[in-house]
């Protein structure tokens, strides 16, 4: 059982890390979710692995540690809330810039004198391909699992559009 749990945690962590290193927001979020799953199982295992034993002192001769369950519950709540926040953040960032790249593109925004604060509403030529990719991610990748992602994208046409019309 130890090997199984350890391998599961390791594999999930590795998957999470790999996804985290991608360049667009959706894989990063999925990677974060994997990572938080891994740490939840890890926290659960930190009180030692035991089967068929109650976490209550006095009822069984050798009770298991009840604390990790309390800790993992806290960790789940926090990581769940954070995932919801970062999904909204990624969606807002995508809608406002027309790109779901994680990079800041600071070189373009700062060096030119003419595109000041309003560089965003006017997507660069390559931003359309980025937004195309992003639509694919939000549509196909997350379709059935992320119900709130679809209404947000709902009114958008299937082809990439500049983001001027969006609030």
């Amino acid at each position, binding site marked *: 059982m130890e090997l199984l749990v350890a391998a599961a945690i390791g594999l999930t962590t590795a998957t999470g890390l790999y996804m985290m290193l991608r360049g667009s927001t959706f894989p990063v979020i999925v990677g974060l979710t994997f*990572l938080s799953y891994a740490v939840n199982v890890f926290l659960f295992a930190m009180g030692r692995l035991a089967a068929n034993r109650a976490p209550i002192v006095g009822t069984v001769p050798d009770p298991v540690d009840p604390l990790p369950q309390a800790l993992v519950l806290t960790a789940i709540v926090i990581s769940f809330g954070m995932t919801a926040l970062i999904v909204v953040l990624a969606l807002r960032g995508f809608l406002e*810039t027309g790109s779901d790249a994680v990079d800041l593109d600071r070189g373009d925004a700062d060096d030119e004198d003419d595109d000041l604060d309003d560089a965003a509403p006017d997507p660069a030529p390559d931003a359309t391909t980025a937004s195309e990719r992003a639509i694919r991610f939000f549509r196909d990748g997350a379709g059935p699992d992320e119900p709130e992602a679809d209404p947000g994208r709902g009114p958008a046409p299937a082809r990439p559009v500049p983001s001027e019309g969006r609030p």
Partner: protein
Amino acid sequence: MTGLIVLPILLPALTAPFLILALGYDLRAQRVASIGATVLFLALAVTLYALAGDGPPRTYRLGDWPAPFGIVLVLDRLAATMLVLTGVLASVVVVHAAAGWDARGRHFHPLFQFQLMGLAGAFLTGDAFNLFVFFEVMLIASYGLMLHGGGAERMKAGFQYVALNLVASTLFLFAVGLLYAVTGTLNIADLAVKATQVAAGDRALLTVGAALLAMVFALKAAAVPLHWWLPAAYPAASAPAAALFMIMTKVGIYALIRIHGLAFPDLAAPWLAGAGALGLVVGAVGALAARRLAELVAYGVVWSMGSLLVALAASGAAAGTALLYYAAHSTLAGAALFLLAGLAAAARGSLGDRLVPGGPPLGAGPAILFLLATIGFTGLPPLSGFIGKILILQAIAGDPHGAVLWALLIGSSLPVIVGFARAGSTLFWKTAGAEGVEPAGTGPAALVPPGRSGLAGVAILVIALAGLTVLAGPVAHQLTATARQMADRAGYVEAVLGEPGGRGREAAR
């Protein structure tokens, strides 16, 4: 009297929902209530400082559970010092924000109060997992504050900031899990006892857990090479939020002192000295390369965190005094500069705070405040940065690598001064009215110099710097007592585990 210890957490925790539920649509009432609560927080912090000054650390057992089993709040001089610093900074920032920043988005004040709650909790808790929870409270509020005002650039920078901190939180959980699995405790004082008794076979696991934890705190403290998020995140945040975030980097330092200083004293120090030396170099180079005032200040923060880490890695009461003095100084000076960057950006219209000539004249008030804050921040005499630098230099004089660190500490100041001098001359002298400078395109907000209400907050912070300078003797005296208590690891463990009625110590054995 020990009941007072929980109040700095409870006060903002109750104020924030009150602001949302009772005053949700009345910004004016929210401002009054939020400023009142923050000033009360400061008063409470000062009271607690007086309380902590007279003896060993005091504890407050939540739910009255005995020490290693329940969660304890521990008030010692270090925690009280950080609380007072938080209170001073927060009071200035909330007044500054009430002059108009808080109207640019919703729920600034509730988020601000939640941030205070997280900060106070992180400073007071004596439990490693509870520290994680308060870190999260602090970070969740900081995500909201960071995004306050909206905008595409802020969203992008905010995503990076949130994602990075989520990874750090996950690492924190891995580390806490490892420590618990090896030692069977989460109480920091108990951890310090158990860490010495760990079986030889588990020692490697314990070290991995402690190292992971040090990495998380180093990331929060913007230690090079874990600093890269800061120059992206802080300039993108609104000015009051960035000013308040100055205390968040100090939370990383505080947690390193609290957990690693207590339980793993020899583990992190050599790494921290290296990270500090690198931070001095990277911050100085970044200050030369910065293209915006806020970015310049952010690299200045990386640079000042380098000095702090060098002081943190050194041992002895003198180093502790230098660390705390410089931490207080750099928090206030950095906050003043971030607020000024926000004011300059508002007055320069579409130019923002980018370091290009040709903006509207900003007037004498901001220029003088910028000069003073910069003198303080870069460590020029006569303001407190100079005294802080001298304290650090004295503290590391006996260090085997002292010569290298001295050279870096002194040498890296020059590029930072050059960076700030260049920024000041660009912003305040090369204005549209000056000879030979073309007026640059400015938006509708141009030609409105920063108002008095905006400058007042900066002025108070600069006056606080002057106060730190004039009262350097008494302040250093107080901080020396704090540093002595910080080094007294047995005293802390005794106070937490061996208190009257603390049956935990015997039971835990």
